C-alpha cells in the first residue's frame, strides 16, 4: 500500500515537474497575424509581415506556429497624402502603424499596443507606402519598449494561459 501511494505520488510530482519544465523550456510564442481586411497591396503586406517577424524574433518571441496563443497584429492606415506637381510628380504619404500584441483565446484582450508614424514618397501611392514601411526601424527604442511591455503582460498571465491552443482536428475535412 505504502509502495503504491509513494509510486502514485512520484508519478504526480514527475508529471507536474514535466509540465512546468515544458512551460519553462518552451519560450513565449508570438505569431504575426495580418488583419483580415486590409487595403495594402500584396507587396506591402509581405513587407509588413517580414518586418514584424523580424521584430518578434529580435525580441526572442518569434513563432511561425499557427496555433500560437499570442499574436502581433499590425494595422496600417494612411493618415495623410500629398501629390507634388513636379517632373515627375511625387506622392508623399504619412502612415499610421499600430502594433497590437493580443491574446488569441480566452479574453482575447490586447496586452500591449504602440502607434508609429512613418512617411514615404514614391511615384505613386503604392510606392510611397512601401517606402514608408521601409522606414520602420525594428531596433528603435519605442518598439523595444513595446515588446518588453508585451512580454511582461504575457508573463503576468497564469501559466496555463500561455500554453498553445490545441490544433483543430482536420481528419474529416473534405478536400
Amino acid at each position, binding site marked *: 500500500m505504502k509502495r503504491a501511494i509513494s509510486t502514485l505520488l512520484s508519478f504526480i510530482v514527475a508529471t507536474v515537474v514535466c509540465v512546468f519544465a515544458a512551460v519553462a523550456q518552451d519560450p513565449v510564442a508570438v505569431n504575426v497575424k495580418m488583419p483580415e481586411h486590409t487595403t495594402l497591396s500584396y507587396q506591402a503586406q509581405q513587407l509588413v509581415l517580414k518586418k514584424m517577424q523580424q521584430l518578434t524574433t529580435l525580441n526572442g518571441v518569434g513563432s511561425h506556429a499557427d496555433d500560437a496563443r499570442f499574436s502581433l497584429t499590425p494595422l496600417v492606415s494612411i493618415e495623410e497624402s500629398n501629390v507634388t506637381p513636379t517632373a*515627375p*510628380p511625387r506622392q508623399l504619404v504619412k502612415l499610421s502603424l499600430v502594433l497590437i500584441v493580443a491574446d488569441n483565446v480566452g479574453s482575447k484582450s490586447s496586452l500591449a499596443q504602440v502607434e508609429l508614424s512613418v512617411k514615404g514618397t514614391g511615384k505613386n501611392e503604392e510606392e510611397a507606402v512601401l517606402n514608408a514601411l521601409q522606414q520602420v526601424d525594428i531596433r528603435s527604442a519605442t518598439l523595444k519598449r513595446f515588446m518588453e511591455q508585451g512580454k511582461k503582460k504575457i508573463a503576468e498571465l497564469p501559466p496555463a494561459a500561455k500554453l498553445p491552443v490545441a490544433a483543430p482536428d482536420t481528419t474529416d475535412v473534405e478536400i
Partner: protein
Amino acid sequence: MLNISENLESSMKKIILSIAAISLSLAALAQAKKPTIMVVPSDVYCISNSYSQQFVANGVEQTLPDYKKMMQNDRNMRLAITKLAAIMADRGFPLKDLEQELKNLEQEAAEVAALQGKEGGEIVESPIDKLKRTAKADIILDLDFNIQKRGPQNYVTFNLRGLDAYTAKQIAGAAGAGSPSTSAAPELLLEEAVISYIDEFNGRLQTFFDDMFKNGREVKLQLKRFGSAAFDFEEEFDYNGETMMFGDIIDAWLEKNCVQGRFNRVDGSSNMIKYEQVRIPMFKESSSGRQTAIDARIFANDLRSLLRKPPFSVDCKVYQRGLGEAWVVVGEK
C-alpha cells in the same frame, strides 16, 4: 502665299543683333551663380493631349502631366523644345533638357538603390531626398502651342512664359500666332512662330537679369520651427539694447542685410514667418577677401549664424530649395 524663308532670314538678323547686346551682360553674369533654364511643356498642353496621370490624395482626384509619356510620343513638342534650346544656347544660356533630366533621375534612383559599400552598407535616403529627386530649374520656360486650321491653311498659336521657379513671377512672355500657310509642314510653322517673337521674349529676360545685378537676386525666405525648439516666434528677446519679438528681430536683420533693405514679410505666426521679394546681393566678401557668388542658401546660413549666438543660442537647419528659396528651421539640425 507667305515666303517663310524670307521671314526667317529677317528674324535671324534681329536675333543676331540681340545676341550682341546681351553678350555684354552675360560676361558679368558669368561670375555670378547663373540660373538654370528649362523648357517645360505646359499643363494644359499635356493634359489636353492626354499625356497625364491620375492621383488620389486625401480623397481628392488630381490630374497631373506625364512628361515622360509626352516626350516619348509628341514629335511636335520635341521639335519645338529643340528649336527653342538652340536659340537660347546661342545667347549663352544652354537649357537643361527635360527629357534627358528625367532619364538621369531614373538612372540615379536605380544606382542609389544598387550601390553598396564593401562592408555591405547602403546609401541612406530619407523620404525628403526622394521627394527632391525631380527635374528642377531656376527659370521655367512654360511652352504651349496649338496647330490651327483656317480653311486650307495651317497656322500655329503659341504661348511661351518665362517663370521664376521660386517667386512664381512671370519675368518674360511671348504669345501669338504664326503666319498661316497651305504648304509648310507643322514644324516649320512652329519654328517661324517662335522665332518671330523670340527677340521680344529675350529682351524681357535680359531686363530680368539686369534688374538682378542692379537690385540683387530676388529670393524667398521662410522661417519654420521644429517641435523641439525652445521658443516660438512670438517670444521676446533683448537684442541690441531693445526688447523685441523674435519676428521683429529677423525683420531688422533683413533690413540690414538685404540690398537697399528690400524685403516683404507676407505672412507670420508663432510657428512660421514667410518673406518674399527678398533682395540678396549677388556677391559677398568671403573670409579670404574674395568676392564669392551667393544664393538663398548662403544668405540663410548667415541668418543661421546669428541665431546660434546669444540671446537665441539655438541650432537651425537650412533647407535649400534651389538658388532662389531657402527655409531656416529653428530648433535642431
